[in-house]
């Protein structure tokens, strides 16, 4: 929570207006009244200074909310070495920092499937939920399709090493609802580099899937190729749905990933 606050403080909470006229509280521009504008909408004080009638537009403030989802799959609890945090810890850290940044920007944030709320307290609520949430003993955890709401922005944290099909379905559904978001793949350096040699019995985190090899070093290139293929699949799907796809290595500093997330959400 503390490191998340520190991270969030690094972000400049800029104005988060929609930069177009709409319903809102802040002044946006004066424009000449056209037909269809009601008499009540005319700003008489501005109009008195000239001949034309002006309408005072306010900046549109769409009721936007962000939904954050972190995979609870057993594989997320993996850390390649004792010095590194687990993927889940890192994902939660990123999620919390992002939550705080968004909240301080006035957005409403929630974990997927929960009602979004604004305010500092919501960060505490989310943190508590994340901490008390149990880890599944399955290898796969799919983002909840039914929790998608129009106008939401969704941030998905996962290693995306499980079955990709639910994610692809989710993206298709999200693009249908006009929901935009980010896929954040959090991986351990071991998963990116595949440093094993010799005879190794690989077991997935839950133990359900296994692969035995006599020469792990020989599998390295094939594994890396498959990993790259998986990323390509995901980023392709994300692009099609208007989403963004990013990767993060738990060996790297979290601020980098957070900045990328922030910029993607800003843009």
């Amino acid at each position, binding site marked *: 929570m503390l490191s998340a606050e520190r991270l969030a403080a690094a972000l400049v909470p800029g104005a988060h207006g929609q930069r177009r006229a709409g319903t809102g509280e802040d002044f946006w521009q004066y424009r000449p009244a056209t037909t269809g504008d009601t008499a009540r909408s005319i700003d008489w004080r501005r109009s008195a200074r000239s001949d034309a009638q002006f309408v005072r537009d306010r900046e549109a403030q769409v009721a936007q909310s962000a939904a954050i989802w972190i995979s609870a799959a*057993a*594989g*997320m609890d*993996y850390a390649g070495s004792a010095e590194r945090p687990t*993927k889940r810890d890192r994902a939660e850290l990123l999620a919390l920092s992002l939550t705080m940044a968004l909240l301080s920007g006035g957005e409403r944030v929630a974990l997927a499937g929960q009602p979004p709320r604004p305010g500092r307290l919501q960060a505490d609520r989310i943190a508590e939920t994340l901490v008390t949430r149990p880890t599944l003993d399955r*290898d796969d955890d799919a983002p909840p399709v039914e929790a998608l709401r129009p106008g939401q922005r969704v941030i998905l944290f996962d*290693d995306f*090493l*499980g*079955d990709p099909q639910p994610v692809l379905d989710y993206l298709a559904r999200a693009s249908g609802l006009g929901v935009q978001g980010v896929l954040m793949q959090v991986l*351990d350096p*071991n*998963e990116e580099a*595949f440093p*094993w040699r*010799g*005879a*190794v*019995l*690989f*077991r*997935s*985190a839950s133990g359900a*899937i*296994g*692969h*035995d*090899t*006599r*020469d792990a070093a*020989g*599998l390295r290139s*094939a*594994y890396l190729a*498959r*990993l790259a293929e*998986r990323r390509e699949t995901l980023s392709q799907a994300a692009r099609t749905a208007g989403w963004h796809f990013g990767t993060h290595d738990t060996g790297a500093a979290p601020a980098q990933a957070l900045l990328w997330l922030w910029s993607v959400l800003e843009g």
Partner: protein
Amino acid sequence: MLLLGPLGFLTPWILIGLAALPVLWLILRAMPPTPKLVRFPGTRLLLGLRDPHPVARHTPWWLLLLRVLAIGALILGAAGPVWKPSPEGAGQGPLLIVMDAGWAAAPDWPQRQARVLRALSRAEAEGQPAAMLIADGRAEGALPFQPAGELAGPLRALRPAAWETRYPPDPEAALAAAPSGLSVLWLSDGLDHPDQAKWLAALTARGNVTVVPPEGPRRALELVPGDQPALRLRTTASGADAPDVLAIGVDPQGTPRELARLSPADPVAEDGVTTRLVPITLPSELRNRITRFEVEGNASAGAVVLADDSLRRRKVALIGDDRASEGQRLLSPLHYLRRALAPTTDLIEGGLGDVLLATPDVIVLADQPGLGEAPALRDWVEQGGLLIRFVGPRMAASERLSDEPLLPVRLRAGGRDVGGALAWGEPRGIEPFAPDGPFAGLEVPGDATVRAQLLAEPAPDLASRTIARLTDGTPLVTRASLGQGQLVLFHTTANAEWSNLAISGLFVEMLDRLVRSARVNRPAAPETDQAEQPFWTPELVLDGFGRVTEAEASAPVAAADFARGPAPGAPAGLYRGGERLKALNAGGPIRPANWHGARIERGTETPGLALRGWLIALAAALFALDALGSAWLARGRQRALA
């Protein structure tokens, strides 16, 4: 046996197995390494991948070497290697076995038999005749030499004797039939015996003598007589620690068991023999139950002391008028009785009711008329008690003397004054005791006289009840049995009032004899003639191992032979002579033997140093190291699991 320099192999063909070691090396090399177990979330990405070129990792060379060494050690060990095997015995020629067969040979008897059997089978294989001298004092005549195989049967049936090892007195006569060039194997019991030096000289002159010393020290246990009996433990061991002596007896439930454990006092070493005194510090109730003492963990008749009458301290109750003041102590009859009995017995004093509760073996009543009417006292006598009564002035003055109960004879009222100031006659002396009575052998001092006595009513059985009389033929001591017990009456006082008997040494000896004849926790046996017998009849007999065997068909032993200690025909045991029970114990003074001019066989010399056990232990240790090394290799897997 295959000999390779100083190394011999008992079963050399197993060494062929060493040829398989290189094959084993190859097989062990090809063994696949243990895989690591890795938890990896990306396993799904690996599914279906094939190993491009599977490589078998080699077992580390040091592990391989360890395993091959271990198996090599196993094979070598199984082949029975012996370091510097020495050919057994140098003897060529007829075999003469001298087997010490006394009690000292008993503790390691099976090993001795095995050693002799080995020598016999070797002699049989070489076709040499053999003879066996069993030194238990029963060998007679010239030793017959016969095929060695025929001696094995008698040897197996041989048991050590319950007396000291004895050699025939004349070695020349015994060796008359012996061929020259003898090879003598002497199974010594480690102790010196009479005629041993003579035999050794005779045998050394006829051939070479190999002496097999005993395994472990010899121990002998002996009873030291005296007022405070003790045991003497002699051992040839020089070590500081000595085994305990167990006192074994019948517990109140009737089960024989260890009653006490006596620890020896400080050792005194002399001439290679360490002597320790073992005091018997036990309450007399416990001591009276003891049937035998034995040295713990030593199965030998010499380490057993059977308890007899001399060990059992009688409990004697004194009842009398002890109200005399200090100035009159010398007038009190109890004073003389106390002085006479205290050194050898445990004294109880008090009223009749009190002393009966203490279940004494003997009750002494000094001039107590009327007490005999107590039914408890009568019951006690009938159950085996010994009641000794002394007369005195009060009894003489008793009006109901003629029907006083618990007296061996009826007394005539009034008494008799033979040497007093108002009498004509001289004080009477005591007639020498009859040779068949309980006082047989006691010497009568000439100055012991009796001045007054109580006379018995004449009766037909008066003579047979009298066991001591005065010179005029009147009874001094009479005795009768009642139930299982006895009544004894001294017809004079226990103080110096009527007689100076009480201040003579004879008084002490007479009382001692009487008290010793009292029953001590013994089962009731029909009263026999209580004469002192010139023969001792064995009641139970020990074998050489110190175990009790029934004395079946054992002939009585003449008293003269009995006094010389255990011998053939008189094995150690318990012997009964009349009423007395006497133990003949084998243990006595010991002296370590010395062998001049004989080869002494060392235990490790004969078989050489067998390396089998060491090699197998080495193999086990190597396998343990291998297990550790394998575990070390597999530690990565453990870490992955954790």
